[in-house]
């Protein structure tokens, strides 16, 4: 017993209900992290959390309705990951090629995608996006990373589905500079950037979850986008300016 005895008037307090305190948001950062980790591994605790969320959430509905910026919906619509089967398949080929070591292979794959992939054009209307197994229950929360420049709106949106081991990257506001490629990197803590692949300029790409993401545990995965010569970095390291960064936080 390290804690001092509570003052007399507090002795009748009910035992702390960790799920309730977690949902209420009052825990210290350390306790909150610990509770979040427990939510992922302890189904009984996770169920208690859900029940408390249902109990307390109506409280926030008392918040005043405030209109977000007019252009937010178009931005969201552009950011929706394209999950259509054809695009996904092309995306997979594309990303596999790019993550496979040499820039030469990457250039060849790029050629293949240009030939076999969808024609460049406006971002496809999400209304036409077909979904694969939408009701499939995910056992891990979907993660979203907004990649942004130091100033300015979100340039890219990445989503990570650890259950299905898939990552999607959607271009946002940033146009690809003429004659250049935008390349996505993972920045491990204290390590060299790892090449993940090239970001298409006009549609979302889907790729298998990079092996490097497994076992990152609670460490946020930091992503960066750099401008490289057409076809990718000649050295396997970022050579051009970094135009956006962001990271995955668990839902």
């Amino acid at each position, binding site marked *: 017993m390290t804690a001092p005895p509570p003052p007399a008037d507090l002795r009748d307090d009910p035992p702390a209900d960790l799920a309730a305190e977690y949902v209420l948001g009052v825990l210290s950062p350390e306790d909150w992290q610990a509770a979040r980790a427990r939510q992922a591994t302890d189904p009984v605790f996770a169920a208690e959390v859900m029940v408390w969320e249902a109990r307390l959430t109506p409280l926030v*509905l008392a918040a005043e309705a405030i209109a977000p910026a007019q252009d937010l919906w178009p931005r969201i619509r552009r950011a929706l990951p394209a999950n259509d089967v054809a695009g996904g398949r092309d995306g997979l080929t594309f990303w596999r090629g790019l993550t496979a070591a040499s820039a030469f292979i990457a250039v060849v794959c790029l050629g293949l995608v240009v030939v076999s992939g969808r024609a460049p054009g406006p971002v496809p209307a999400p209304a036409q996006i077909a979904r694969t197994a939408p009701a499939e229950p995910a056992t891990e929360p979907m993660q979203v990373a907004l990649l942004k420049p130091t100033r300015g709106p979100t340039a890219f949106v990445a989503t990570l589905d650890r259950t299905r081991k898939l990552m999607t990257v959607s271009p946002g506001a940033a146009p690809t500079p003429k004659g250049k490629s935008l390349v996505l990197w993972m920045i491990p803590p204290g390590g060299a950037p790892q090449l993940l692949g090239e970001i298409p300029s006009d549609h979302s790409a889907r790729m298998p979850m990079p092996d490097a993401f497994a076992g990152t545990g609670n460490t946020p995965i930091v992503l960066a986008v750099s401008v490289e010569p057409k076809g990718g970095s000649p050295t396997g390291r970022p050579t051009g300016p970094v135009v956006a960064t962001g990271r995955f936080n668990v839902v």
Partner: protein
Amino acid sequence: MAIAADLERVRLVRALQRVASGEAAALEDIYRRTSAKLFGVILRILGDRNEAEDVLQEVFVTVWNRAGSYDPTRGVSPITWLAAVARNRAIDRVRSRASRPTQPLEAAAEVADGAAPAWAALEADDDARRLAACLDALDEKQSSAIRTAFFDGVTYEALALRLGTPLGTVKSWIRRGLASLRTCLDA
């Protein structure tokens, strides 16, 4: 009033089901009906419009990806589910910026005029009414501590500072309040 709330609930449940089968038009419908409310929830926690818009964007990308996991048979209303997603995202953002204090709420000045007329009906939702009744039954200090903590997304320590009350006392108010709330809501 109650009929309007039920209708709105059914509309949202249907829209979520359509989103789950890939209809972006249904997501836009949900956005039109709920974005001002959800933005209000997020802005209240973050206090910064740009950041709140980023989080709202994350929320709708999440809803697009996860609408299929909303289960109307579990007794949680669709707006409660959406608000939980929004609040969790906002809290996550607060926790990740850790060192920056929460801004006060001047941002709330720009109120959406008639942005979501359906909201009056939604607030009369059963969940919300029961919760309000149970909170009102608590000791004033307990209910106000719980409301503030949840609404603004603040920790025990921040709340103690804000109220100028010892940490142990604030914990005691909240723990007692939560226990009574549970009993009242489950009754």
